[in-house]
């Protein structure tokens, strides 16, 4: 039973669930469920199916493919995507650069970029972080100098997710070196094929290639690729980060992972019984389930509040990010514990078996969720300041 959804909302949920299960190939969803890295082609295929049915960018303005859903419908949509192990539409396109262009871009930019972003015809990556500008993003140094032909951009971006696949990068750059930190930053769209752009891979400890360094060496960027006004980039970035934070609790994903843990723990032998019957193990799973339930309703309360007006980011969303990442990590720990030492067996292609090193790699990989999108420490700083007034 669901105590708060209306009958119509429940129907909406069930229809989406059926649709995702039916239309998104099982092959792709199995990878998501196991935490196995996706190929570029998997993400493109899945997003194009969604887009063909008007489901890639339902939260965008209506004229660019949006659906005018209520916040509750949007939350149901995200949760169902995650619970059915459908890859989320590419965050950089759909939740980051898309909404920024839709809100602050020129008409020409909207026409040129939005449809292609929604259909993943262009793959976007996010060029915000720099070696010396992580949590303190506003200290970024990449500079863009006005010349007769456009901006000349030089600097280094780092931790750029999927830059190796990207056609475009949206960057924060410094256009006014004299201005104080946040002022003097602009939001530029840069073609990855431009001369002077170099991508160097960074391999993470899970052995995967997800992030990169992006070097910008006197890259010429046409003026028409500036979003909004010069030196107003920080405002757009704040708007983007607020969007990024919504849905970042990934409750649906954690639920899906826990369901998998239960399934595998029943199949895994521990002595004469299934691992699921081992009290110490089961207690940890149940604890995480209860915490997820609590977070689910915390998220609903946040949504209910955001229904009434204000566009400012709700500081409660920091709670969602903080707790949500802790629970994603807890779920990844449980997956690893189900695999146990069996995970050191030679690789098996069958990701439904317990003897999978993928569970270890996913655990290592998921350390990221408490680091990016505003680290857990930064979220605590926000909560202390804005909610507790400390």
């Amino acid at each position, binding site marked *: 039973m669901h105590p708060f959804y209306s009958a119509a909302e429940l129907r909406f949920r069930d229809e989406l669930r059926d649709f995702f299960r039916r239309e998104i190939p099982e092959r792709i969803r199995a990878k998501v469920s196991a935490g196995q890295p996706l190929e570029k082609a998997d993400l493109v295929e899945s997003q194009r199916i969604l887009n063909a049915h008007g489901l890639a960018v339902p939260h965008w303005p209506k004229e660019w493919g949006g659906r005018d859903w209520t916040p509750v419908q949007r939350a149901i949509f995200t949760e169902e995507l995650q619970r059915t192990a459908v890859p989320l539409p590419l965050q950089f396109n759909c939740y980051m650069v898309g909404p920024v262009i839709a809100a602050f871009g020129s008409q020409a930019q909207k026409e040129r970029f939005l449809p292609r972003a929604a259909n993943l015809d262009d793959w976007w990556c996010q060029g915000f972080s720099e070696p010396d500008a992580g949590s303190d993003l506003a200290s970024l140094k990449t500079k863009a100098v006005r010349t007769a032909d456009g901006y000349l951009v030089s600097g280094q971006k780092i931790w750029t997710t999927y830059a190796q696949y990207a056609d475009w990068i949206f960057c924060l750059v410094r256009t006014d070196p004299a201005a104080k930190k946040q002022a003097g930053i602009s939001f530029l769209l840069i073609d990855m094929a431009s001369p002077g752009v170099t991508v160097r891979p960074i391999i993470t400890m899970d052995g995967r290639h997800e992030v990169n360094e992006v070097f910008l060496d006197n890259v010429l960027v046409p003026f028409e690729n500036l979003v909004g006004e010069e030196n107003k980039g920080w405002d757009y970035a704040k708007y983007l980060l607020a969007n990024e934070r919504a849905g970042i609790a990934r409750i649906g994903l954690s639920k899906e992972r826990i369901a998998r843990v239960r399934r595998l723990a029943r199949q895994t032998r521990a*002595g004469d019984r299934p691992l699921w019957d081992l009290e110490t193990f089961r207690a940890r799973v149940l604890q995480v389930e209860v915490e997820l339930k609590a977070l689910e309703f915390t998220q609903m309360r946040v949504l209910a509040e955001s229904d009434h007006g204000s566009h400012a980011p709700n500081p409660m969303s920091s709670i969602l990010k903080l707790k949500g990442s802790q629970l994603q990590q807890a779920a990844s720990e449980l997956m*690893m*514990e189900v695999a146990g030492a069996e995970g050191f*067996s030679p690789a098996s292609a069958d990701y439904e078996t317990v003897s999978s090193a993928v569970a270890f790699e996913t655990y290592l990989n998921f350390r990221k969720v408490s*680091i990016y999108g505003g680290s857990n*420490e930064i979220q605590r700083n926000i909560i202390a300041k804005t909610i507790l007034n400390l």
Partner: protein
Amino acid sequence: MSFTYTDEQSMLDETLTAVLEEFCHRSTTSEDYRAVAWQKLTELGLPAMPYAEIDGGLGSSIADQMVVQRAIGRSALDLPFLPNSIVAGGMVAFLLKGGHASALIASLIAGDAKLSFAHDEPLDRHRNGVVATAATPVDGGFVLSGVKSRVLHGDCATYFLVSASLGGAPEPCLFLVPAGGKGVSIASNGGRAGVWASDVRFDDVFVPAGELIAEPAEASALIRVALDRALVATVHEMVGAMERLQDLTVDYLKLRKQFGATLGSFQCLQHKAVDMYVELEQARSMAIYATAMLAADEDDRNAAAIAAKLQVGRSARFLGETAVQLHGAIGMTMESETGRLFRRLTALQFLFADGDQCLAGLGARPASILED
């Protein structure tokens, strides 16, 4: 009562740390560094440690061998010292002492031959070493069949010490089997997830009578000793990795600046580093305790070993996760020592017994470990 290294142990530790230092700075773990690193350890004479002086060995104490394992832990490398020397070597040194296998022991000491203990089997979690691999008597010897799992560094072993049940007996015997023998096939995991482990299949492998080196009663007792030593050695390796992670984290907090200040000036991060340090000291204490208890009778020895694995496993999880968190993204990379140490430390939490297995073991004892 002494809780610190002897002068000799300190010297061993320093020498070894200096030798392994070179590998700490290697930017990737994808290449197989084991042969090179093992060669260096051999030059230091380490493979001779478990063997008696009459056999040409060093006759080192188990505590000395733990010094080595802890130093290896600081390097984040997965080296065959544990399976080859501490575990299988310990058993072979005991069983073949006094000259009747001098050629084998000589080649083990020279580092030419390497051992691994083929004991665990697929899907045998919480089965407490019940062995399904079978030995059947035939003319002149035995035939072995079965699959062994998690054979550490099995892909570069020259001999396996195999536990197998003779004629369906509940307790296994021990056989010495050449890795290249007919019917032996080895599948390596390629070092994935930070552990070099193999599945080893024995398909009707003929073993001459003389290679049955321990009968059930003796073998079982020996295996229990070996597995407790393996637990304690793992604990030492984890402590080594934690020590290094602690140092790297504190250094990084002093160095990295954000918001115009060093990270170490933020009090919340100071407290995290302090909590890590407290866990490190707890882990060190249990490592020392469990090492001393290796000399106790079987029940107490085993309880101390699993208690140590439990405590150090928990401390390691917290310390490792926090170390990565405090480094930010840079701590997640394969290029950073932090990332590699964390990966290895995570894997070690599952070797020989995970947290639930330790809890089950402690729960099965009538007495509390607090009664001594």
